[in-house]
């Protein structure tokens, strides 16, 4: 199972502890526009497919990324 916090942390080049489970684009330092692009590309690499636009638009928080990766397992 892929960990959303780890994926975000690696994409923005911060330690995992830097990214709380309830983190969002507004609250996680380093989750900037470039970081966001890296997160989206890392997600697509992990999923093995390009994401739909509607999916992309939902991904503004760690929880949303977790839902996409793990089907809402939290």
């Amino acid at each position: 199972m892929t960990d959303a916090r780890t994926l975000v942390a690696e994409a923005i080049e911060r330690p995992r502890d830097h990214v709380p489970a309830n983190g969002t684009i507004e609250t996680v330092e380093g989750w900037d526009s470039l970081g966001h692009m890296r997160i989206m590309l890392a997600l697509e690499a992990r999923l093995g497919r390009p994401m739909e636009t509607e999916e992309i638009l939902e991904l503004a928080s760690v929880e949303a990324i977790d839902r996409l990766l793990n089907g809402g397992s939290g």
Partner: protein
Amino acid sequence: MRLRWNRGKPVVLSTERFDLRSVSQRWIARHTFAWSENEQVMAGLELRAGGWLLRRWRRRFAKADNRNHLILAIFDKQNGRLVGYESVNISGGNIAFIGVAVGDTDWWGKGLVVETRAALLDYLFDVRGCTRVWGTPFGRNFSSIYNYQRLGFKKEGVLRKGGRSANGDASDMVAFGMLADEWRALRAENPS
């Protein structure tokens, strides 16, 4: 640097790190023409890199008049360098459509758009009396989508295959909108 202007009043905005000043279509085309060779920059605009003629590059920009069509060049306060621009088209008297380009890639990922666009929203809502500001980034322009979301714009819809990407394929675009009351509420929560 001297900026000449004939129609309407010049627009000058200032943020912590940047100055924004209205410029003409000709000025912005001439000063950003080198960006047309930069693959990274052009990919963000969904345009092909290289092979542009200056007159064709200039036609990409609206003829700015400081009334309904604005091009605001963004300058780094530290050194006066041009780093990007915001474009604004106001229709119906109070609905503004916006776009942005950051040609200095050293500024990518450093909050330039969030900072400058916040000042632009203040201007459009408070000075120009706009009721609505909106934009339509490409669906795969992750950085641009981030900037709209980070500022609190609401997603209003996906324009399926609403644009053409640099490789000629039809691509989704996303309509993001902000109303004046929404922006004022966000500003009240977070004045910075």
